[in-house]
């Protein structure tokens, strides 16, 4: 019974993976019927180029900011939603809604908001006598813009998962701590947070993986990739954008693959040991 599934996984997951590794050893232009075998030449070219530093740094900054931002803000939102005040159900739906929206649609709407000439944000800033930052022309600000939107879109996911974690905390233990005189902050820091360890661990893995594979928002909001050259976007630009370097792009994809595998192994082998399961 497993055979059909294995064949499908082999055909649509492992075969492209193997093909990609093979293509990464070629100097091949997309659309060309011929290619030259260059061995590890594409890897050497990438790691010896100025682009490597920029791409790896941008990838790291984007991942840390989006994972950190989504998780911290998600936890804060979950704490706010984990109260018995009216309207929390509506608020929960509102917080989660951006997560299920299309990345392309979200990107287009936020582009209009950020537009320094015609955008809503520029209009509001002008009302206060300030000029809009040059979001589209300044690479640093472009990255900030994309990170902001990515966090906005994804914090709902973290909030909902954290909310589920908060609601499954043992009520009797928390009550006992309160009776023993532990304040809210102390209970949160010494009890809730450690007990949320498995939730945090799960979110850490899933959000890092999705952050490193984030593409739609970045592609829509920064078509020139200025300031937003993450590994996956660089692979796209090199392979399907202006350069059409299919082999070189495949090498960058392999670098991303190795990075993802390494991070996952580290997380499972090391971070998992630090998590306290109830």
């Amino acid at each position, binding site marked *: 019974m497993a*055979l059909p599934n*294995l*064949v499908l996984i*082999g*055909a649509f997951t*492992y*075969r492209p993976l*193997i*093909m990609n590794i*093979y*293509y990464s050893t*070629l*100097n*091949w*232009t*997309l*659309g*060309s*019927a*011929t*290619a*030259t*075998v260059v061995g590890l030449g594409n890897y050497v*070219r990438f790691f010896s180029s*100025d682009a490597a530093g920029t791409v790896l740094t941008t990838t790291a900054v984007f991942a840390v900011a989006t994972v950190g931002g989504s998780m911290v803000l998600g936890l804060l939102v979950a704490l706010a939603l984990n109260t018995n005040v009216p309207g929390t159900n509506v608020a929960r739906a509102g917080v989660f809604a951006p997560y299920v929206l299309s990345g392309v649609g979200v990107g287009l709407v936020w582009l209009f908001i950020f*537009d*320094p*000439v*015609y955008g809503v944000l520029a209009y509001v800033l002008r009302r206060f006598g300030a000029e809009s930052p*040059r*979001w*589209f*022309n*300044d*690479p640093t600000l472009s990255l900030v813009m994309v990170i902001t939107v990515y966090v906005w879109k994804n914090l709902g996911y973290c909030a909902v998962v954290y909310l589920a974690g908060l609601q499954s905390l043992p009520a009797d233990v928390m009550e006992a701590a309160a009776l023993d005189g532990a304040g809210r902050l102390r209970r949160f820091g010494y009890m809730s947070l450690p007990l949320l360890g498995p939730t945090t661990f799960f979110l850490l893995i899933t959000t890092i993986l999705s952050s490193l594979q984030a593409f739609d928002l970045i592609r829509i909001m920064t*078509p*020139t990739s*200025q300031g937003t050259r993450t590994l996956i976007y660089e692979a796209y630009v090199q392979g*399907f*954008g*202006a*350069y*059409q*370097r299919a082999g070189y792009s495949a090498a960058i994809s392999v670098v991303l693959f190795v990075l993802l595998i390494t991070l996952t192994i580290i997380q499972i082998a090391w971070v998992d040991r630090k998590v306290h399961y109830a």
Partner: protein
Amino acid sequence: MKGNPLTMVPPLDRRRFLAITGGGIGALALSACAGPITSGAAPSPTTSTGTDWSKVTPAPEITFWSNHPGKSQDVETALINAYHKTQTETKVTLVTAGASYEEVAQKFQTAQQGGQLPHVVVFSDVWWFRYFLNDSIISLNDLLSHLKVDTADYVEGLYKDYEFNTKQWAVPYARSTPLFYYNKAMWAAAGLEDRAPKTWQEFATWAPKLKAANPSAQVAHMYSAASDYDSWTLQNKIWGEGGALSKDWTITCDAEPVVKVLQFTQDSVYKHKWAGVSAKDASADFAAGAAASFVGSTGSLVGVLKAAKFDVGVGFLPGGSQATDMVCPTGGAGLGIPKAITPEQQLAAAKFLAFLGLPENTAAFAAATGYMPVRKSSDMSAVYAKTPQAKIAVDQLSHTRSQDYARVFLPGGDREIGIASSDILTQQAKITDRLAKLKSTLTDIYTTDVKPKLR
């Protein structure tokens, strides 16, 4: 009971299951090694020489991939309908293959691997040469000759833009040049003559007056964003100072005239503060009154005239201290035919391509979009009567120059030049350092991606 060993299927035990699975995955792994041909020399680019076109029957159906440059979907549809009235042997289907030249190119390149190729496709000025290098397109000489297309009637400069190794690889279609657009009311308020400046140096003396007289405008001039083909118009200033991005395959983007031009441009933004860099679309900024002038494509002409609530003036591109003539680049897109389709489809495609290039059809396309008529004999009088600005674009045509190889023939050259220019104009990058880096990048592209394929 024992069955016939020739027909009996053995039970699927664990060992056999693993063997089958392993074999399947192994076969997949081996098939993964299929892809581009990696042995032997690459084939020479194909020409249409050798096919006896008189013995070929046009295919009954073909597709035309376009991004509808200049919002031309309606006029393209009308031209296809007109084509269907002139003949019945071939039905043409218009396909929106992307929103930009880049998206069409991406789809076309991907189709080379995955099939479903178009039969006529829009090639932008910075893309067709890659198709030539990849051996993805056919030369059109024999087909055009067989169809008795009057190629001498094409505007010579536009036609020769697609010539390489003495062969013709596309024909002009949505061709443009940049124009200098200005707001006549702002010009009048500043007491300036109703004309475009003759040189950028002259405009630098006008700009403070424009700013002082028009406080509602953010800047006297808006430069294009990096995403909006700014490297195309940058060539104008560089040529005016006697420089070039490249001379044939030698990259000269760090030479003194280029440094001088970018210093002038950077100073206009940061030191003299009369110019700005558009966030997205300089023509939209201009139409909204945020800038007194900008340089944009003739393909934007109809759109700008519709969007602007003021009188729009257009003029030739300004020159520089070294040259005031032949400083305007050509641009836009042509039409070509893929190699990996049948001769029947190629012939049908060529017939349609020839129809689109008829003088009356190119005039209709120009009237609807603002692009230039690509045939000398096109009657544009009705267009000029309605849109006198269009005549400026056509008059400028005889003062144009083909673009530098660094921008149009190097894959990614356009993007790299645009980003370097953007770094200098929006990040105040040190000009000499940034241009040296650009030269290194462009040289690497030529050495790795172009030179090995040139024959």
